[in-house]
C-alpha cells in the first residue's frame, strides 16, 4: 500500500527513509508540535516549496532541461489566485478559478517556451528562460493597474481560512481556527501534488524523460518524439509550480514581484534541488527542509556566534547576523563539494 502510494520508488536507504518519515510527521503535526506563528509559517512554506522544488526536479533532474523561468510559473499561480480574489471577491470559488486559470496560463507559457528548446542548445535555452523570466517580472511591476506593480496585491481569502474563523476551542493548547485549516489545506494539497509527481516520474513517461536526458538523439531514433515529451514535461512542471504558487498566495495572502517572481526564489529552488539530489524527488523534500530552516534560523544562530567571539578582530564582523548571506554562499559551495550527488545520492550510496 505504502509502496504503491510512493509509486514503487522507495527511499532505498534506511536512514533516508527515517529522515523522510520524521519530516512527514513533523509537517503533519506541525501546528501541534511547534506552536508559534513563525514555526507554523516555516512549516507551510516547507510544504509549498517541496512541491515547487519537486516540480522543478521533474524538469531538471528527470528531463535535463535547465530553466530559470520556474518562478515565473510559480508567480502565475499566485497572481491567479490574487487577481481572482480581488475581482471576484473573497471566496473558495475565486481560489479555484484563480488556481486553475494560473495553472492554465503557466502551461500555455511553458508550451510556448518549450518550443524554443527545439532549436537551441540547452544552455542557450537556460539563458532565454532567464531573460524571459526577468522581463515578465519587470512587466508585472510596470502593469501596475492590473498587478499592483512593485507594491503587489493584498487580498482576502475565505473567512474559513483566517484566524478570525473559530470552530472549537483548543486542542492540545492549539487554537482551532481558520489558520489551522489553512495550514492543513496547504499540507494536504502539497502531499497530494508531491505523490502525483512521484507517480509521474516513475511512470513509463518518466522513464522516457530520463532517456531523453541521457541521450535525446538516441531517444528520437528509437521512436520517441523528443519534442512532444519535453513539451509535456515542461507543461506539467509549470502547472504544478503554478499550483504551488496558488497555495503560497493562499497562505501569505499577498503577491508581489519580490515575493513570488524574484530571481532569489529561483536560486533557492536550484539550490534545494541540487543539495537534496537531482533526479530523486526525495531530494526536493530534503533540500527544501534544510534550506528553509537555514534561511529562517541561520541568522539567529549567527547572532549567537558573533556574541561568543566578541573582542576578536574580524571574526565578529564575519559572524554578525547581517552576514548570514555570506555563510549561505559558503554553504552553497560546500554542499556541492561534499554532496556531488546531493544528500539523497550520498545516503543511497551508503556512508
Amino acid at each position: 500500500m505504502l509502496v504503491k502510494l510512493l509509486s514503487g520508488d522507495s527511499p532505498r536507504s534506511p536512514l533516508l527513509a527515517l529522515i523522510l518519515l520524521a519530516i512527514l510527521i513533523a509537517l503533519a503535526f506541525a501546528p501541534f508540535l511547534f506552536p508559534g506563528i513563525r514555526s507554523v509559517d516555516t512549516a507551510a512554506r516547507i510544504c509549498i516549496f517541496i512541491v515547487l522544488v519537486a516540480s522543478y526536479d521533474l524538469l531538471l533532474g528527470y528531463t535535463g532541461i535547465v530553466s530559470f523561468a520556474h518562478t515565473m510559473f510559480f508567480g502565475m499561480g499566485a497572481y491567479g489566485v490574487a487577481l481572482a480574489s480581488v475581482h471576484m471577491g473573497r471566496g473558495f470559488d475565486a481560489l479555484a478559478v484563480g488556481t486553475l486559470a494560473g495553472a492554465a496560463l503557466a502551461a500555455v507559457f511553458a508550451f510556448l517556451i518549450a518550443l524554443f528548446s527545439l532549436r537551441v542548445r540547452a544552455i542557450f535555452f537556460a539563458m532565454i528562460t532567464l531573460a524571459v523570466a526577468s522581463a515578465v517580472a519587470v512587466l508585472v511591476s510596470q502593469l501596475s493597474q492590473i498587478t499592483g506593480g512593485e507594491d503587489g496585491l493584498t487580498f482576502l481569502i475565505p473567512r474559513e481560512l483566517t484566524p478570525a474563523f473559530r470552530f472549537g476551542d483548543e486542542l492540545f493548547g492549539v487554537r482551532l481556527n481558520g489558520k489551522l485549516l489553512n495550514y492543513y489545506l496547504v499540507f494536504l494539497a502539497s502531499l497530494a501534488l508531491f505523490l502525483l509527481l512521484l507517480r509521474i516520474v516513475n511512470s513509463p513517461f518518466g522513464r522516457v524523460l530520463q532517456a531523453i536526458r541521457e541521450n535525446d538523439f538516441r531517444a528520437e531514433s528509437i521512436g520517441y518524439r523528443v519534442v512532444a515529451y519535453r513539451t509535456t514535461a515542461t507543461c506539467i512542471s509549470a502547472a504544478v509550480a503554478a499550483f504551488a504558487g496558488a497555495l503560497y498566495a493562499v497562505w501569505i495572502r499577498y503577491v508581489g514581484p519580490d515575493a513570488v517572481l524574484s530571481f532569489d526564489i529561483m536560486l533557492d529552488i536550484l539550490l534545494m534541488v541540487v543539495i537534496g539530489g537531482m533526479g530523486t524527488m526525495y531530494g526536493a523534500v530534503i533540500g527544501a527542509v534544510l534550506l528553509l530552516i537555514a534561511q529562517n534560523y541561520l541568522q539567529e544562530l549567527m547572532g549567537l556566534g558573533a556574541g561568543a567571539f566578541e573582542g576578536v578582530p574580524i571574526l565578529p564582523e564575519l559572524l554578525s547576523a547581517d552576514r548570514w548571506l555570506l555563510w549561505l554562499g559558503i554553504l552553497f559551495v560546500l554542499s556541492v563539494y561534499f554532496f556531488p550527488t546531493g544528500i539523497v545520492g550520498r545516503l543511497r550510496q551508503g556512508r
Partner: protein
Amino acid sequence: MTHPILETRDLTVRFGGHVAVDAVSCTFRTGELCAIVGPNGAGKTTYFNLISGQIPASAGRVVLNGQDITRAGVSRRCDLGIGRAFQLTNLFPNLTVLENVRLVIQSKRRMGFALFSTAASHVELTNRAEEILDSVRMMPLSGYKVSELSHGNQRKLEVALLIALDPLVYMFDEPTAGMSVDEAPVVLDLIARLKAQTDRTILLVEHKMDVIRSLADRIVVLHNGALAADGAPAEVMASDVVQEAYMGKELDIA
C-alpha cells in the same frame, strides 16, 4: 521475397561543396540481406543517416512501402519501421542495460505517454527485455550501467536494442567492430536468424569480407558517395572497383 520495401531515388546530400552521397538510387526488397560496402568515407553511414532521417536530404527521395518519407522526422520513420544501430556507440550511458532495452520495447508498444501507472508494474516489458538480453548473452550484465561496460559489450548492446525494436528494415552499421573473436559469431548468428525470418529486410555495413561472403544476398558498393556497383556477392566482389579501391593489396605481409 521480391516485394520492394525501401527505395531511394537520386538521394543526395551536400555538405557545403562536398557531395557525400551522390544521387544514389537503389531498391531493397523484403527478406533480403544487403551488404553495403565501400572505402572509409564513401558515404555509407551518411546514406544510413539519410534513410533513417538523422540528416535531411539535399535532393532525392526516400520511399518506404510506397510512402514517401523524405520529409518525415526520425521518430516517425522509426514508427513506420526503420530501425537503426549506430557505428559509434550511442546509448543511454547512465541507465542500466536492462532499462536501455526496456525503453526500446516500451517505445515499440507505444506506452511512452502512460503517465499514471508505474513503470515497474509493466512486467511484460521487463520479461521481453530479459529475453532479448539473453539472446545476446548479456543477461549477467543487465544490472550494470552502460557506462560501466567495456567497449565490446556496448557494441553488443547496440545490436540488442535494434533487435528489441524489431523494425521492418534493420540497419546495422559495422555491428561487429571491436567485438572479440568469440563474441562476433553470436551477433552474426543473430543476424542470420533475422534473415531467416523472411519478412524483415536487413541493410548491413561491414568491412569484414568473410562476414559479407557468408551472409549477404546482395552487395551494394558506394564509392565517393555514388553507387559504384550493385549485384550478387560473387560478381561484385570480383569487380575492379572493389578490388582496387576497397580491398587494396590483401594483407600479404605475413
